[in-house]
């Protein structure tokens, strides 16, 4: 053990997140001891009682590495994104929410007004006869109470502040996190800033374990539960929509190994500006019909193109929210 080597200061933060990314860090299991041997956790709300004001009190660039998971949906998320940017030498967008907007980013199909109305007024289990909505500021006799301001748009981390690296995945594959962490601890040369790390540069399809034939011809698409998957051939060739053609490899084919099509959590591969546009081309390429009416019939089974093709990436896509 080299006693002299200073330990890395590590922070992990969740913004608009589900908690899965923090759990994925715990999934390093007994390797957590190696992590703790090499790093001091200086901030990690899921596990440690360290307050925001403690972080605010740290000198700039005090933290060596921050893994930031979750999207930016309100003023608290934004404040923490900018604060942790200032306090960290390396800021990593960890997981799909932080990288691309992720599942919370699907809220960009609605407006702030629609969401607040649905959640606080219309939801079947809500009793709110006075139609009270959360306010960023509220005066009571003891003083003024504050809540974070809820934004109209969900944003990815890099839409709010400068990000050094992106580790994709919902959540990222834990093994890939360990590789990245080891590289940082050992001082290995890191890729240029702004890179996606802990993932490949190819698409899922490039090295997919399922069998692909040359002749893809589809006359009908199915939802996964509508057919009996043969377990070996490409999902798309069986008529099940798989995001593989528009998704970066690197997860170890987690879903495909579990006999489920890829849903696209690793985001688009390099050079693809918009995963949905790529999927539209891929799907149009295999439909075996020429007449507009027949094509429309086949497309009826592509029930929700926007939701399926941009499930993890709506806020960073070309059309990043529903038009208002």
């Amino acid at each position: 053990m080299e006693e002299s080597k200073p330990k890395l200061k590590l922070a992990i933060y969740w913004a608009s997140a589900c908690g899965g990314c923090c759990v994925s860090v715990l999934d390093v299991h007994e390797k957590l001891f190696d992590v703790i041997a090499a790093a001091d956790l200086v901030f990690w709300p899921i596990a440690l009682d360290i307050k925001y004001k403690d972080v605010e009190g740290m000198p700039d660039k005090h933290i060596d590495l921050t893994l930031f998971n979750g999207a930016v949906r309100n003023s608290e998320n934004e404040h923490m994104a900018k604060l942790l940017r200032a306090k960290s030498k390396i800021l990593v967008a960890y997981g799909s929410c932080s990288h691309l907007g992720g599942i919370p980013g699907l809220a960009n199909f609605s407006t702030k007004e629609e969401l607040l109305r649905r959640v606080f007024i219309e939801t079947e289990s809500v009793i709110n006869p006075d139609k009270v909505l959360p306010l960023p500021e509220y005066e009571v006799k003891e003083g003024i109470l504050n809540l974070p301001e809820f934004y109209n748009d969900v944003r990815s981390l890099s839409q709010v502040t400068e990000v050094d690296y992106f580790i994709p995945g919902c959540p990222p594959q834990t093994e890939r996190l360990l590789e990245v962490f080891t590289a940082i601890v050992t001082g290995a040369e890191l890729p240029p800033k702004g890179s996606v790390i802990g993932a490949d540069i190819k698409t899922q399809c490039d090295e997919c374990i399922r069998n692909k034939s040359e002749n893809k011809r589809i006359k009908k698409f199915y939802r996964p539960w509508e057919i009996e998957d043969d377990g070996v051939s490409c999902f798309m060739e069986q008529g099940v929509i798989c995001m593989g053609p528009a998704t970066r490899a690197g997860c170890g084919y987690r879903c495909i190994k579990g006999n489920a099509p890829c849903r696209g959590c690793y985001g688009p591969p390099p050079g693809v500006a918009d995963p949905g546009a790529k999927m539209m081309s891929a799907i149009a390429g295999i439909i075996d019909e020429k007449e507009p009416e027949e094509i429309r019939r086949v497309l009826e089974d592509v029930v929700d193109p926007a939701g399926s093709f941009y499930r993890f990436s709506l806020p960073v896509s070309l059309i990043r929210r529903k038009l208002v």
Partner: protein
Amino acid sequence: MEFKPRIVAFLCNWCSYTGADLAGTSRMEYKANVRAIRVMCSGRIEPTFVLKAFINGADGVLVCGCHPGDCHYQEGNYRCLRRFLLLQKYTKQMGLETERLKLEWISASEGKQFAELVNSFTETITELGPCKIKETMKVLM
């Protein structure tokens, strides 16, 4: 101020662009709001091209290729048609009016049809007013 719609037309080289050219050389009158972009085949028009046209301020996008069976690369226009129908389903979900995106087949001899198409499309878009996509994409909050 009078609204002058901006229209982007993707035209395949072999039929539609020649048709548009014919409309010009025969001095047929058609509205000057169209920016024509020539591509080798309508099958080359990727959904990204159309989305980027809208984001950069197009109020309407026209996609034109050879008539079915006439594509110089055999199947390009069928591929275009399939992409187009899926793209239209998606853009509708995003709140874009379906009328703003139009596909038509124009042959090399159909200068007149091209002029009429441009005029009627321009009229439709003028009635719809400016596309809100550019404004929506501007704000981030």
